[in-house]
């Protein structure tokens, strides 16, 4: 008799839904509706009976969504991927509607039954939403709030759109229809459905609306290099110097093989004899590579918007010398990588930084200390070069002496919270460190002392970066702002506000007129330093941005995220050139080689990867919008021995320095 009751109910149910055949029903494969025809599990029976009471209640959501879902999955192959895009926004809005109406229990079951569909693409959003359990949370939680406020843009072709509407009307899925009308903004395009490959950017459920991002990205930016930069000066004097150098090289090569033990370049600031040997080899390849290197199409020049500090002439000379001796890297000529391994850190190392010449390595620790190693004193005893003369041997020994035991490093103490970032100025005589105590401190490596404490942020400062010319620096904080400072003022010069979550990393553009910030809101923004305005928003990452790097020619930017993907952006268009897939874990650091032909990335998966970017960035320029068919090539993967790579730095001579912590448990 119960059976009869069920049968009757089911028939009524079909009538109500406007469905004719039970088979159709069977296709809609959710456990609540599909199975009862054949089996009479008491649980299911109860559930079915419950439907009659909840006809217009929360069950409708589950039911209608399930139908929409199964219809989408059985739709035509050609249009399916477009229709699938609709599912996710509908899903989360269904969920939030349920929560908003107070059907917490139903919301939870609904969420859990369809969660798996979207886990692959939107895992992190789902994790956030999962916690929403009361209408007040919806109001409180920024993410949910912004979702409720803004509409999702979905590009869809004419036919898919019609199919969808037809289905919704025919099946009388009024709830779904309501949600779609309310929260989705269809951009119907005539013709064929878009290709499946640009699926990635199809649905970006962002806090900020797409339009405003687009509007911002219309602004003009000058990505060219600075006028009268050292590089430019090098090119001017280049010809002359090159000749003289060649002559020099000739005479040296004439000496025959036997007495070649001596290094050709005495002046390299590298620490060990080993390194000097290396330089010799490097200079040899450099000489060969130089003549073939075609002059790079010079980037446009722009005027600096900031007053730039004056560089002392002798320093300028040494930089020019370095630039002249730079190894030309390409896919055929890979760099040498010198790896600095931290040991016995007891899980305390939060960050590391390498000075521009690789001679100093700083580590920021969670015990609030900053430690600086002078590589000249580690390893083999070697001749101290001019550049290292300034690293005050006397004072460091004094510090070591006062602390009792002899330490191989200089200890800087002053912060009152974990040190999250450290950066050297281009000359290597200053270090900035940022900490959870919301301050930034300036240290002098000459005096081994704290000079300034910059207070301004209200929350932990995640990142601090010196500008390429020194003097100015930028900081990024949990308080959702990035700030620009100069060394001589204790107040910030500019405050960049706009990110919807923590600003996690910051990087200067090579012409110092812009800074880029990466955030937990999964966007990268580009800010004008002078005006403090946001000039670009780069949308495309699926998780928190951890690292940024700017190409030396100022045209491209690379950003790495928590999932291990790296994206290459064209600054002028604001588009992603290509995603670089390969890492399996957080990309902690990125670095462009001196002339911009290679990108190095260091990751928590214990590898350094080298990417060829010349091939792929040139192509899209030529064929403009024909899609990112050309993928950036991963040239080489250099595995380390269970050492996650924390920082990378190309020296001015294109030697790559990397640093990481030996972690035994990996």
């Amino acid at each position, binding site marked *: 008799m119960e059976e009869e009751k069920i049968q009757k109910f089911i028939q009524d149910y079909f009538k109500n839904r406007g469905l004719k055949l039970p088979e159709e029903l069977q296709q809609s494969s959710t456990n609540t509706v599909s199975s009862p025809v054949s089996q009479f599990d008491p649980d299911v029976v109860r559930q079915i009976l419950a439907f009659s009471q909840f006809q217009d209640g929360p069950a409708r959501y589950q039911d209608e969504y399930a139908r929409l879902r199964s219809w989408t999955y059985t739709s035509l192959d050609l249009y399916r991927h477009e229709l699938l895009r609709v599912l996710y926004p509908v899903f989360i809005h269904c969920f939030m509607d349920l929560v908003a109406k107070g059907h*917490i229990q139903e919301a*939870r079951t609904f969420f859990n039954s369809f969660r798996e569909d979207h886990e692959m693409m939107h895992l992190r959003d789902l994790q956030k939403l999962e*916690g929403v*359990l009361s209408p007040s*949370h919806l109001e409180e939680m920024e993410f949910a709030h912004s979702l409720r406020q803004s509409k999702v843009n979905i590009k869809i072709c004419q036919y898919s759109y019609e199919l969808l509407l037809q289905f919704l009307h025919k099946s009388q899925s009024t709830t779904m229809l309501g949600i779609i009308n309310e929260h989705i903004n269809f951009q119907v395009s005539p013709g064929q459905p878009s290709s499946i490959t640009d699926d990635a950017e199809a649905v970006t459920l962002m806090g900020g609306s797409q339009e405003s991002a687009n509007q911002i990205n219309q602004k003009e930016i000058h990505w060219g290099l600075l006028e009268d930069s050292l590089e430019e000066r090098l090119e001017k004097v280049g010809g002359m110097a090159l000749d003289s150098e060649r002559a020099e090289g000739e005479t040296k*090569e004439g000496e025959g*093989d*036997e007495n070649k033990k001596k290094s050709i370049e005495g002046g390299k600031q590298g620490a*060990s004899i*080993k390194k000097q040997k290396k330089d010799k*080899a490097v200079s*040899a*390849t450099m*000489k*060969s590579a130089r003549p073939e290197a075609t002059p790079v199409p010079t980037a446009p020049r722009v005027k600096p918007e900031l007053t730039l500090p004056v560089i002392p002439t002798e320093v300028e000379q040494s930089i020019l010398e370095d630039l002249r001796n730079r190894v030309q890297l390409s896919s055929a*000529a*890979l*760099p*040498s*990588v*010198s*790896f*600095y*391994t*931290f*040991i*016995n*850190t*007891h899980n*305390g*190392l*939060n960050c590391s930084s390498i000075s521009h010449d690789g001679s100093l390595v700083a*580590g920021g620790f*969670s015990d609030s200390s900053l*430690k600086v190693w002078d*590589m000249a004193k580690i*390893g083999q005893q070697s001749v101290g070069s001019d550049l290292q003369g300034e690293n005050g041997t006397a004072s460091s020994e004094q510090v070591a002496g006062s602390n009792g*035991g002899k*330490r191989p*490093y200089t200890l800087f103490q002053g912060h009152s919270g*974990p040190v*999250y970032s450290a950066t050297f100025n281009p000359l290597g005589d200053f270090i900035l460190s940022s900490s*959870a105590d919301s301050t930034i401190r300036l240290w002098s490596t000459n005096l081994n002392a704290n000079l300034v404490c910059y207070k301004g942020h209200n*929350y*932990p400062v*995640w990142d601090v970066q010196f500008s390429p010319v020194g003097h100015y620096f930028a900081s990024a904080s*949990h308080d959702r702002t990035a700030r620009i400072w100069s060394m001589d003022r204790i107040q910030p010069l500019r405050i960049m506000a706009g990110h919807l979550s*923590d600003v996690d990393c910051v990087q200067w553009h090579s012409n110092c007129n812009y800074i880029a910030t990466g955030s937990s809101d999964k966007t990268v923004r580009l800010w004008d330093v002078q005006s403090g305005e946001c000039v670009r928003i780069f949308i495309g990452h699926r998780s928190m941005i*951890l690292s940024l790097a700017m190409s030396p020619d100022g045209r491209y930017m690379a950003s790495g995220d928590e999932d291990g993907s790296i994206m290459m952006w064209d600054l002028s268009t604001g588009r992603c050139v290509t995603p670089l897939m390969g890492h399996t874990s*957080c990309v902690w650091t990125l670095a462009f080689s001196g002339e911009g032909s290679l990108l190095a990335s260091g990751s928590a998966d214990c590898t350094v990867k*080298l990417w060829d970017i010349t091939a792929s960035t040139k192509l899209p320029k030529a064929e403009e919008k024909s899609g990112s068919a050309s993928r950036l090539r991963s040239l*080489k993967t*250099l*595995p*380390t*021995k*269970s050492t*996650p790579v*924390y920082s990378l730095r190309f020296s001015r001579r294109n030697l790559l320095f990397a640093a990481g*912590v030996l972690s035994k448990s990996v």
Partner: protein
Amino acid sequence: MSIVPKENIEVISQSIGINNLSPDVALALAPDVEYRLREIMQEAIKCMRHSRRTKLTADDVDGALNLRNVEPLYGFVSGGPLRFKKAVGHRDLFYIDDKDVDFKDVIEAPLPKAPLDTGLLCHWLAIEGVQPAIPENAPVEVLTAPSDGKKYEQKDDGLPVELKLPVKHVLSRELQLYFDKITELVVGRSDDILLKKALLSLATDSGLHPLVPYFTCFIADEVSRGLSDYPLLFALMRVVHSLLQNPHIHIEPYLHQLMPSVVTCLVAKRLGNRFADNHWELRDFTANLVASICKRFGRVYNTLQSRLTKTLVNAFLDPKRTLTQHYGAIQGLAALGPSVVHLLILPNLESYLRLLEPELLLEKQKNEIKRHEAWRVYGALLGAAGQCIYDKLKIFPTLPSPVPQSLWKTNERIVLTTPNKRKRSVEPMEQQPPSKKIATDGPTGLTNSSPSPMQVDTAAPAPSGDTNKVPSSSSTSLSNESISNSRGRSNGADAQSLKKSAVLNQVWKDELNSGKLLVSLFQLFGEDILPFIPAPEMSLFL
């Protein structure tokens, strides 16, 4: 509904002294607790990321609580993973096992060892993109190579992984043993079979990379010490050869150490102290070795060949050096290829032969050993020059045609193969050589060039102006030179052609500067050079 059951809320409320919590309140609180928990975890994850970690620790949670101005939870240190224990009788109830510790024990216990201080080590992760196989780097995947040395097999890759502080370079025991064995074999002049096996192992085993610096040192030392020990030197060179062959060894960074010893074995004054020592063979072997090094590393290490040739040419041109040294230098240059010979030996050939001549003759050089050496040198020179010519003949397929033509005229013997050959060679070649032929040889040339009548037109105007028309084309001058070269050969072939070519030589004198050289080559060597002319041409002479 929320992951925090309302019972928990009740328990917690009781623990802080609220006994009469209404169930509604607990029900309302539970979801909020979950939400706050998630919020804190989200912040904690941020802290974890900024500490460059992929594992969440209690510190991170404390940091997150700190961000919210909440007092951190005390008592959870992130020293190790927290050990949860299952409560007996419950399926999903866990607790942290807190052991009772006796104060006395703690006080009386000796002080724990101070943890090691943080240190920084430096190594090469990669050298020009190639990872050196050193213990600091992750082990490279073992390319299985069939190796005979079973004793030492593949142990090397699993080098002891501990990184001890002061140790600069860890060499495993197995590797040390291996090195000792090999050096012993090489120095000890033991039986040949064993040495051969050792060499094979050197050439194929993977994981020998850490030994390369030791081997290079060893070789350099032994060569400088054992110049009079011929078998040792030979064995050393074979070791070098094997090392070069090993695909798992990246020997390039050590070449600069290796090259001096190798070159020494090529151009040393004396190698071996007994007359019976066949140092010529050693020099030949080394010459080939040097050439193979240049071929392999010349591209990456581009000063290599120039420096090497400079050394060799210096040795070759210095009259004060002994003949053995000259021999080595010539062999070395010859092994580097015909173009090197052409550039560096041939210009100096005449003067050198003049120098050599007195040594060759019985009446002038009584010392038989010296004379033998001189003949050796002569042979080497001949070989080098001949190889050079042979190579040129091969490069220019047009060559065969002039040869038969000039012959054709003189001794009316038509070889039927020539037209065929011509046909084949017509497409790639320039019009110059045959046309020149035509111009000089008159009607005979015309008949012969019937397969390619086009060329007659181009060549007709002025034979002497041919090269002026295409002055820049290097291949033209080269083929010209090779024509006269063949002329030169025909000189030797019979008297008639000699007369002819003498005339021709006069005609082409201005243009064929390099051609002259090859003529002179013939004059210098006489008929000895003939065996180097490719077989098809030779057949024409007979």
